[in-house]
């Protein structure tokens, strides 16, 4: 049975993929390798996993605003997530999603999404 969640569009788009969920905030600058998409932040719960092609789910961004450019680099290297779902999007991720044209939606209760489940994003709608 599918579940529909309604959020707020940060960057409009459609995408479908398996979810990769982090319950803690993410820093792209220094936290994710821009070429491989691997999470490299020491001690982060997703350390050693790649964000590539996943619907990446996390509460909010953190760290340097250079993180927006890292998201852009991920897109160019083919290692970007296919969509991003946040609880509360902030400047770094919003700017990164827009310049990289990664569908992005926030104001979603991310506790309802589990790693490995199939997720479809269409504008403000998230379907599980």
């Amino acid at each position, binding site marked *: 049975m599918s579940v529909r969640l309604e959020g707020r569009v940060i*960057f409009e788009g459609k995408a479908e993929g398996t979810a990769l969920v982090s319950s803690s905030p993410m820093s792209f600058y220094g936290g994710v390798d*821009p070429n491989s998409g691997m999470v490299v932040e020491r001690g982060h719960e997703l350390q050693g996993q790649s964000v590539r092609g996943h619907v990446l789910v996390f509460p909010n961004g953190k760290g340097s*605003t*250079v993180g*927006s*450019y890292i998201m852009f*680099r991920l897109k160019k290297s083919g290692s970007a997530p296919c969509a991003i779902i946040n609880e509360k999007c902030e400047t770094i991720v*919003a*700017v990164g999603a*827009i310049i990289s044209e990664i569908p992005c939606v926030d104001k979603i209760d991310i506790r309802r999404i589990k790693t490995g489940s199939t997720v479809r994003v269409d504008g403000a709608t998230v379907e599980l």
Partner: protein
Amino acid sequence: MELTSEERGLLAGNEGRAARKCMQILVALGEIYGAESLVEVSSVQVSGVSYKNLGDAGIEFLSELAEDGRARVRSTLNPAGMSLTDWRAQGIPQGFAEKQLEVIDAYRRLGLEISCTCTPYLAGNEPSFGQHIAWSESSAVVYANSVLGAKTNREGGPSALASSLTGRTPLYGYHLDENRLPTLTINVEADLKSPEDFSAMGYFVGKTVKDGVPYFRGIRSAGVEELKTLSAALASSGGVTMFHMEGITPEAGVGPARSQAVSLTQAILAETTAALSDVGAPDFVSVGCPHCSLTELATIAELLRGRRVTREFWVCCSGEVKRRSDEAGYSAAIERSGAKFATDTCMVVAPIEDLGHKVVATNSAKACHYLRNSGLRVRFLPLEECVLEATR
């Protein structure tokens, strides 16, 4: 959010791809932070210039934007990762230099002034009281809001660039008077004797007030040098965007915060100062974080008179202030000692850990904070002692 017809046109792409992308960024940020509209800005300061921070991703983004994007308002740049003219003498590797020059070239094509300083207000980009601006160098943000009375949020590099290419910023946060009121009163009991004391005080208060607005009481006088190093420290240990100082800053008439007060004692100041230093003999000395004013260059020239430096000593300032210093004769006096000007750059954004230095002496709490994050050891010393260390 309500947009004017011109703004809707920009968003529709009538003025090209770059302006459209920038407009998307500003509208999204406006929605996230609850702005009702955009507001026109008169000045922009863009961070994200050093190749050390930007990397290839940044170059790629800026180059794409430069295909059809142009600055619409006066826009200046933060320091780069090296002096744009004397990088060889600084020991910067060729590969790094080529990438850094690519970054600068993209900004030039975008129509930004290649000012490369964290103190635009000392180099000609000085907004007036009440003006809306979009600045993204945290120390300059605090200075502009607090000392000049201009209005800006703490922008990131990309959002400031979006303001440059559209001439607008979302109207929220520190652009609104109700968000510029003090949240914590600091009763200054300590005797502040030097700019370094203001720096240490800022470091302590930044940690205490976090992203609030401190209101300083009990300070008799403070000049440009004291206020700029205080601004930098407040923004590095905390998320401060603005402060007030009774009898000194232009909006201090709103009065102190009613709810809470903290005392800044001599003991706290001494403790903070000591905690900013590691152990070890400095092998590198650098002053000018934020970039030196002409007054500071005059002091440094005087301190160096008749002395020779015995270790690498960088004096960081903008190209503009350096030119004024050349005319005043300070530059020659400084260079005669063997000290090097690091114009367009500084010890925080240049790749100094790759130049083989291990222990850095500096008179800036902000520099200590960021250099430690890069894995270097630091000594926090007054300007006079920095010069002594460099010439010992």
